């Protein structure tokens, strides 16, 4: 009985997970295109401080859950070693989504400096849960 339950979860995880990931990547690429004229850099100090009218802290936060299929691949890689490619895509999605939300938060800023990314974990140490990742991107928006 267990094996059928497991296979159903695996198929559901793969089906919905792949669909959601594809949709998400399409949305990320489109929004990145929209924001590509907004300079987002890691410099601690603005390039022309004398021209700044206003500045503020902006941030974007995202929580994504992994699916059963991704977890299945990860648990197999745990035995043999290697890169967990199923987690690489979800981490990439989470970081890019967090940066995009931060940019959306910045409104008509002329640039965002001192970009930082933090990862926290809600589902740490819970073996039975499917698991999720949490990414927070923040920086200083400069208005000229």
């Amino acid at each position: 009985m267990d094996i059928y339950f497991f296979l159903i979860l695996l198929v559901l995880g793969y089906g919905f997970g792949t669909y959601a990931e594809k949709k998400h990547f399409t949305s990320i690429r489109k929004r990145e295109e929209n924001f590509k004229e907004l300079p987002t850099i890691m410099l601690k100090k603005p390039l022309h401080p004398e021209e700044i009218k206003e500045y503020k802290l902006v941030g974007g936060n995202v929580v994504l859950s992994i699916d059963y299929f991704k977890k299945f691949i990860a648990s197999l890689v745990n035995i043999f070693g290697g890169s967990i490619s199923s987690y690489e895509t979800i981490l990439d999605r989470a970081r890019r989504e967090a940066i995009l939300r931060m940019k959306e938060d910045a409104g008509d800023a002329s640039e965002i400096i001192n970009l930082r990314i933090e990862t926290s974990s809600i589902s740490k140490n819970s073996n039975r849960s499917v698991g999720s990742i949490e990414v927070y991107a923040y920086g200083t928006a400069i208005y000229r």
Partner: protein
Amino acid sequence: MKYNTTLPDDSVNFSSEHPLALAFKLTISLLLFAALAYFLLGFIINYAVDTITPTQEKKLESMLSIDMNLTQKDNPYLSTIADKLSKCAHLPYDIKIHIIDENQANAFAAPGGNIYVTQGMIKQVKNENELAFIIGHEFGHFKNKDHLRTMGYKLVLSMFGMLIGNDFGMAANNILHLGDAKYSQKAELEADEFGLDVMNCAYGSVTDATKMFERMDDGDEWKYFMATHPGFSTRVSKMKEKILNDGMDTHKKAIPLGNIAL
């Protein structure tokens, strides 16, 4: 100085291998690894089981205190049947038969010459001959040391479960169990044969030996594909084949049931 507006390169941060291809590759590797480990550990288990002495087994018995709802320890009536059969079986154990508080009909052999019979089984039994065959069948497990082998394999399976962890371990266990079931079904048929031999020697007939299985047979053989026991109709036909080949007597009147005192 100009800000470069190129978009992030998608291809560098994650591999382009299709997730299904990766899953397939990993699953096959795991199955191969598991099969190899299972066979190697199987050899070790068989070696250990073949060389273990009854004294060592006695120690093992005290180490593994089986926690069960016993309604009766060492039932005297069942012991008299075991004594009759023991004269023919020549097992290196002092057989003790216990009754478990459980409605499903079942019986099994445990280390140190302990046989556990469920109350559900006792209730289904119609005469002493049927009971004698059940006990004889468990004697067969002792003779072939199946009780130790099963324990060893269960230990290995639970180790795999721990290695892989959680749900995936359970699924891997299910697959390995398929191989285990085939071995186990063979062991059950061998135990049936031994049970018939012992019964024939102790009682001078095998009257009603197959009756119990015939009553339990619901005609559904498919569900036994993955089970530890073969289907009842398979068992009955194999037993009848042996009875015929060895010319065992099936006409001597069956002995009525004694006082089990549940």
